[in-house]
């Protein structure tokens, strides 16, 4: 170590600044996304709850970000006794809970 290095303390603030900028850019993107998912989940639940009882645990909203196409997956579970009586396929009904299967949307 040179004598001058001994007296000159390293400038650490620029490192702190750069680390923060990178970290916060990432954290802001993540928290923005999870907020959107939460809003979607709430609004979808409100629409479905108009037609039959469903609790908040029964709705899963997932977003996957791909390079070209991203998908939004919505899965709604309803306890079979609550299921509306629309004609079921000929095959025996699935063991409960019946699921209104995922609607996948491409974004």
């Amino acid at each position: 170590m040179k004598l001058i290095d001994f007296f000159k303390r390293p400038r650490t603030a620029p490192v702190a600044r750069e680390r923060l900028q990178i970290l916060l850019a990432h954290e802001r993107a993540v928290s923005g996304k999870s907020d959107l998912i939460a809003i979607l989940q709430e609004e979808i639940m409100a629409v479905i709850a108009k037609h039959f009882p469903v609790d908040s645990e029964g709705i899963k909203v997932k977003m996957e970000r791909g390079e070209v196409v991203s998908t939004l997956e919505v899965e709604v579970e309803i306890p079979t006794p609550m299921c509306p009586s629309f004609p079921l396929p000929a095959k025996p009904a699935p063991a409960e809970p019946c699921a209104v299967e995922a609607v996948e949307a491409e974004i």
Partner: protein
Amino acid sequence: MAKVLVVTSGKGGVGKTTSTAALGAALATAGKNVVLVDFDVGLRNLDLVMGAERRVVYDLINVVQGDAKLAQALIRDKRVPTLSLLPASQTRDKDALTDEGVARVIAELKEKFDWVICDSPAGIERGATLAMRHADVAIVVTNPEVSSVRDSDRIIGLLDSKTEKAEKGERVEKHLLITRFDAARAGRGEMLNVEDVLEILSIPLLGIIPESFEVLRASNLGSPITLNNPVSAPARAYFDAAKRLNGEALDMTIPSDRKGLFGKLFGRRAA
């Protein structure tokens, strides 16, 4: 028109309570009617910093739950007659605070005071979100240090989403208060400088409070720094910040304590 101000930060130990006491006393000495509300249920400290710890009879939770009238719980400051304190409970937990109860107490305080200053607990849990819930104005207290800046960023996100104003599509007026700033260290590149923090958090600057031993001296005595030593550097910075809150446009300066020869020789060790 009364204003509700929340002093918040995310991270603990950055100076929320010190700043609440100092700004509240500064606004009150300027003639405003000010009440300081401690939201740190279970870990109250504003009473201690204000030197009112032996005068607490009823607290915020008693008022929220209707066990005491607001007037019974408010503690009038002995030094500044226009300054009052509503302490937090030390024995109960934050779940005793209900949304409706807090809303009712804040509404009642707004009728009596010009400024209702809510001292938020650290963290992003219920206590912190309740403290910011009804705010018109927010002060984000930040130290020039990575963990504090990161947590402040998180709190700014909450101010934009979890407050009553945000839910109505309005904006909470946000201000940054940088505390424990050491201009010499920032100048040497050892500490984030003001521009760095401002660029990262991008909310307007309310003030820069220099690191000073005067702050500890004041809290030892149970007196807000703006009352204990009004000419000290941190007190002058708080007075300026209080004026800006009242809408005055002042040049941003970082006050420093003038040192005599003795102070220059020995001051560094003392600080």
